[in-house]
């Protein structure tokens, strides 16, 4: 297996990203307190060194297979397809991984890297709790201490995952500052890292943060697209026409899209429109944001006229983030990926719909990608093939969705 070999062919501008200083065009880079620069340098070197070693790659591949349950199935959702027109719809089942979301791909890779660097402590931020659970799991597996920062609002709406993290032996620290959600959890994790940088590795949960994080997380997640590309070719003899993935900060989408960047395939990233883009209560940094710096990188983000970061909103805790990975920003500028958004309401409908029609309860985040099929319906003619990244399962959301439905009555 050669998952971690460089995917870039260098043919297209978006494929050569990032450059040596971690820029994806005018995005990315490193905007951090000086204390973190040596740590980021160490991480960059360790990463290149580790993935260059066959033993490291084999160990990760083995864990992904035997522990995380890869490869994940590609499932043809025929009943779902029927209600959306005539196209064939395939779901990449990241929900079937151990811990229930794509986040485990990155957490296992980075935890191995932490161990390889001799770090005795791992920290992480989490929104939906999926990245926190995945990281707590990887830390338990490798016997490394684990601390997870989580906004107090998210602790309320993702209780199940908080209990899971604690049972896995992680310490969960509530974050009360700011919006009390993912953005502030990242702030808290970065402050912890600045303080404990000597013995601690920070496992960031998405394709954000200062260089090399957007590259590392994308590489560890790119297994999604590599598998899916092979699977769909095996199954249908050709590439899909359209690929859809939800975009919070962008890791499942980047992982899915990366293997297809050079292919003649329409790529669509679906952001959270929350209560609607015109209400200002959304998380659509690509569709409605502007250029700025957050959490160490240049990206599109939600900010006011003075450069203060604006609170994001989404019913899906994992999408509730006011920024987005720098590589997505580049792909948007090149028009290589189309970004659109769906509301809380549509996501909940898709959540219930998929449960009833396919017997699959998706994560609320992933439900945004499913919901987009409605918008796509006019294009879904007989000969089309659509691939959707089902990034996670929805056990964590059932309570929250039930409460939402109750409140809508």
């Amino acid at each position, binding site marked *: 297996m050669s998952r971690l070999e460089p995917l870039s062919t260098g043919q297209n501008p978006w494929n050569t990203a990032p450059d040596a*200083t971690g820029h994806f065009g005018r995005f990315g*880079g*490193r*905007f*951090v*307190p*000086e*204390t973190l*620069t*040596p*740590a980021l340098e160490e991480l960059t070197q360790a990463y290149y060194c580790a993935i260059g070693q066959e033993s490291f790659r084999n160990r990760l591949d083995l864990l992904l297979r035997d522990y995380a349950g890869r490869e994940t199935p590609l499932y043809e959702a025929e009943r779902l397809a029927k209600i959306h027109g005539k196209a064939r719809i395939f779901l990449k089942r990241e929900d079937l991984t151990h811990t229930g979301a794509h986040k485990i791909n990155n957490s296992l890779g980075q935890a191995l890297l932490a161990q390889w660097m001799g770090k005795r402590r791992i920290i992480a931020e989490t929104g939906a709790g999926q990245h926190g659970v995945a990281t707590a799991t990887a830390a338990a597996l490798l016997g490394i201490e684990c601390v997870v920062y989580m906004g107090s609002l998210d602790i309320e709406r993702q209780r199940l995952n908080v209990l899971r993290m604690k049972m896995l032996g992680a310490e969960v620290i509530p974050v009360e*500052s*700011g919006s009390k959600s993912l*953005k502030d959890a990242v*702030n808290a994790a*970065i*402050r912890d890292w*600045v*303080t*404990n*940088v*000597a013995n601690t590795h920070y496992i960031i949960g998405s394709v954000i943060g200062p260089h090399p994080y957007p590259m590392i997380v994308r590489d560890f997640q790119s297994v999604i697209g590599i598998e899916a590309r092979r699977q769909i070719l095996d199954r249908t003899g050709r590439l899909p026409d359209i690929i859809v993935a939800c975009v919070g900060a962008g890791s499942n989408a980047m992982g899915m899209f990366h293997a297809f960047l050079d292919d003649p395939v329409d790529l669509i990233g679906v952001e959270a429109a929350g209560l609607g883009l015109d209400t200002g209560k959304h998380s659509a940094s690509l569709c409605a944001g502007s*250029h*700025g*710096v*957050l*959490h*160490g990188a240049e990206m599109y983000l939600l*900010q006011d*006229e*003075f*450069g*203060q*970061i604006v609170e994001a909103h989404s019913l899906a805790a994992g999408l509730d983030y006011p920024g987005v990975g720098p590589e997505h920003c580049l792909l948007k500028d090149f028009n290589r990926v189309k970004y659109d958004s769906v509301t809380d309401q549509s996501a909940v409908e898709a959540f219930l719909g998929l449960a009833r029609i396919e017997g699959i309860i998706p994560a609320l985040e992933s439900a945004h990608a499913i919901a987009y099929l409605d918008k796509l319906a006019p294009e879904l003619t007989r000969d089309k093939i659509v691939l959707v990244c089902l990034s996670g399962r929805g056990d964590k959301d059932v309570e929250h969705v039930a409460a939402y439905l109750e409140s809508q009555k």
Partner: protein
Amino acid sequence: MSSKIEQVFKRTKQEKRCAFIPFITGGFPNTETFIGLLRALDTSGADIIEVGIPFSDPLADGPIIQHSSKLALDAGVTPQSILDTLREIKHEIRAPLVVMSYWNPIMRRGPEEFAAALSEAGVSGAIVPDLTPEESDKWRIHAENHGIDTIFMVAPITPAERIMKIASFSRGFLYLVSMTGVTGSSLNVSSRLEFQITNVKGMTNLPVSVGFGVSTPSQASELAKYADGVIVGSALVKRCIESQSDVEAINSVSSLSREISEALRFRN
């Protein structure tokens, strides 16, 4: 011609003492008191005054400065409202002013316009804690054009080669962060820190000022043996937060300021 900040260090060097650089959060707790605090610091021993521009996501700051920033933002403080205040009183304040701002508010305004606005407000220098030297080209040229010294930071774990690179980018002085941590963490003035100060001083001709976690006169006087300047932030802001009234805040800040600046006078 040397900058106002350079002149401060020339003078403190002649006077064989260590410069005192207090930090307060801009516009906090309200405009009137902020002005009162600036005046009080200026007459209670400040050699340079650092003013924080509140940001929604202050990554390098601990709970005290985070809290004051949040309160200031909630009260409607903006970068320009702070600069307007500074411009109004610039002729009254003897100590050169240095602004501390994260990069995003500067980027949003436009680096050139921001540098011009600083200069107009009578500001002499800028500290941008999340702007690494590698990313700083788009800022330094405008800062230089407008006579603003950009002060860069080095950390306790910055390798020697990089310290020299950062020092070559820095103007006015070099900011040595006392520890791996955020502002307001508790500081232990160890022999290791003393060694670091001496070490960094050996690598640059710039004055070296130490900050993060300095809160007491005794810590300041220990540091004064080695450093050219000492920066005190959270301890002062904490006094503002804990005061019952604006008058008490000003009195409390100026008394700590006086104690610390006294402690910095005596240098072995």
